[in-house]
């Protein structure tokens, strides 16, 4: 019974999402990868400014039901049928009657099993996609990282010619996605062959500092948070902001 209800909710939310996206046509930025999606999303939101024109997934709503909820900005009904009915009714109103909608959506896209990415892409059409890394939770070799990478390959191929694919150059499987992309690719990482090069990483008790070399400009940053992924998050956010500067989105946004 619950499974049937879940299928109905998923199906209904899918169509509400399609309708609202068709009506408002927001610019979608997809954040994918095994880890670091949330920090990247948060960094992008910080970089773009958290206002009514920019929205990200609340919490980590990033799956087949979570993503539509994120687009429609609805809470989960959790285990209550009544709450789900309420969610669907509110979603219907938002989908059909909403007049205001963010111009930019920054969406985490979580994949657990083969086919997940294809489903998520049937809901949203990102113009910019980021793949943070390909990793796994279990030490056994039988869980093939290459299979996980295939899911992200679906996303990489789906980015249109006028879109941008941003890839972690320090992770071989992620970097290899560039070879199948139809769009422009921007690869960031420590390797000097990357488009955006991270160097001079220095750690201390107060956090870390690093240099970021992109488009012939070298900038230095200091962040409070430790960990390479936090450097990556900031770098990705800078690249995304730069990419958006070259689109009409931000200009239209400021006119609005």
């Amino acid at each position, binding site marked *: 019974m619950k499974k049937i209800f879940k299928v109905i909710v998923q199906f209904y939310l899918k169509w509400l999402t399609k309708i609202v996206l068709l009506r408002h046509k927001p610019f979608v930025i997809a954040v994918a990868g095994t880890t670091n999606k*949330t920090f990247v999303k948060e960094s992008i939101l910080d970089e773009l400014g958290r206002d009514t024109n920019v929205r990200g997934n609340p*919490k*980590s709503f990033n799956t087949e039901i979570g993503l539509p909820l994120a687009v429609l900005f609805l809470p989960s009904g*959790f*285990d209550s049928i009544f709450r789900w009915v309420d969610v669907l009714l509110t979603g219907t109103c938002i989908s059909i009657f909403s007049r205001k909608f963010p111009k930019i959506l920054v969406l985490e896209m979580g994949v657990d099993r083969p086919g997940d990415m294809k489903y998520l892409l049937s809901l949203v059409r990102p113009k910019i996609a980021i793949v943070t890394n390909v*990793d796994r*939770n279990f*030490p056994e070799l039988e869980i093939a990282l290459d299979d996980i990478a295939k899911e992200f390959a679906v996303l990489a191929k789906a980015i249109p010619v006028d879109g941008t694919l941003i890839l972690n150059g320090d992770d071989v499987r992620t970097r290899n996605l560039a070879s199948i992309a139809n769009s422009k690719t921007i690869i960031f990482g420590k390797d000097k062959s990357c488009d955006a090069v991270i160097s001079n990483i220095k750690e201390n008790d107060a*956090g870390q500092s690093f240099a970021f070399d992109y488009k012939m400009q070298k900038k230095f940053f200091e962040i409070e948070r430790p960990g*390479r992924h936090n450097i990556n998050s900031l770098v990705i956010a800078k690249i995304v902001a730069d990419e958006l500067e070259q689109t009409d989105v931000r200009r239209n946004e400021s006119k609005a």
Partner: protein
Amino acid sequence: MKDENRISPIKEIEILSSRIPGVVSLAQGIPSFDTPLCVKKRAIEAIEDGRVARYSLAPGILELREAIEYSLAKRNIFYDFEKEIIVTAGSIEAITASLLTILEPGDEVLVPDPTYTSYQSAIKTARGIPVFVPLEEENSWDFDIEEFKKRVTSKTKAILYCNPNNPTGTVFSQEQLMQLAELAQMYNLYILADEVYKDFIYSNKDFFSLAQFSALRKRFIYIFSFSKSYAMTGWRVAYLAADKELAEKILGVHDSLVTCAPVVSQWGALAALEMADGVVIKYKEIFRQRRDFLCEELDKLSDWFEYQDPSSAYFVFPKMTDKLITAFEKYENKKSNNKNDLKDYQKNSISWRFAIELLNSAKVALVPGIAFGKKGEGHLRFCFGRRKENIEKAMRRIGKFIDSIK
């Protein structure tokens, strides 16, 4: 075989009480609630998806560690989930693994007195020596930094504390904790902070963690358990966070102790962090009501018990008044053979004898204060994490028992 380590008195009381039909227990610190549904559902999903049959990576599943980093960052506590966060089989494993990492045999660890009873055995398990630093009951069980200083020797390696403190419910202030930090820096000591009760603070005071003080990073180990906040005591899942070099060493010990935390519990913990914030707020409000109720009941017995208002956790730690001790000793003298069944360490402790007699005669299980250190002697720990009707029943029985001995 070493004789020093025995089962904690809390568990000892629970075992004794399990043999007596009809006992009401306010002993072990277990919340009365069931685990939140969202946690159980996520665990079931993980089981059905075949994600729990294998070991996870030793430090824990990536998603959970990432969520832990995210939740800590919201409190201005910054650790790298890839290298500095380890998911453990309960906080006691986190503490034991940390102590096994940092201690050489014979090293001393300063612990507040009274404090959580299992710290002593964890220190002894790591071949260390617990050195007790008395807290000031008159001052709401706060500590005096001079008492810590007095006890630092060339063998002192670490300070281990619980904040908010169990069993006193004291929340140590930022000023006090910074004094501890200074001491640690001055004498090259590690600090282990167990913040298992941080979500149950009933005062409006800001809660400060030394984990926010980045200068202490290299010598600080942060510990948090999902057991209390999310009613997950049976899931055995907690985490520690430490600077990467230290974390790497602790990881080696953790790996040899448990390989990894239970994987099904790790998925549950992830759901707890992502979805159960509202539940924690609800639990806190219920605990607050139970605390007020228990304190009101204790006020009715004010000739027999005196207590400091607990501003956090879910324990009250009242002192037995002289009147109660005198009455109880007279009662003991009348019952000639009642000490024969006691073990030596119980015979010499008024709180142990009272707790056991209360258990046998009134069928109420409380933890004797001596379990938490010498300063705890003459006290009893009441847990208000239990159901209100059980608290009510226990207090009624205690009242009757006191009537019978006075």
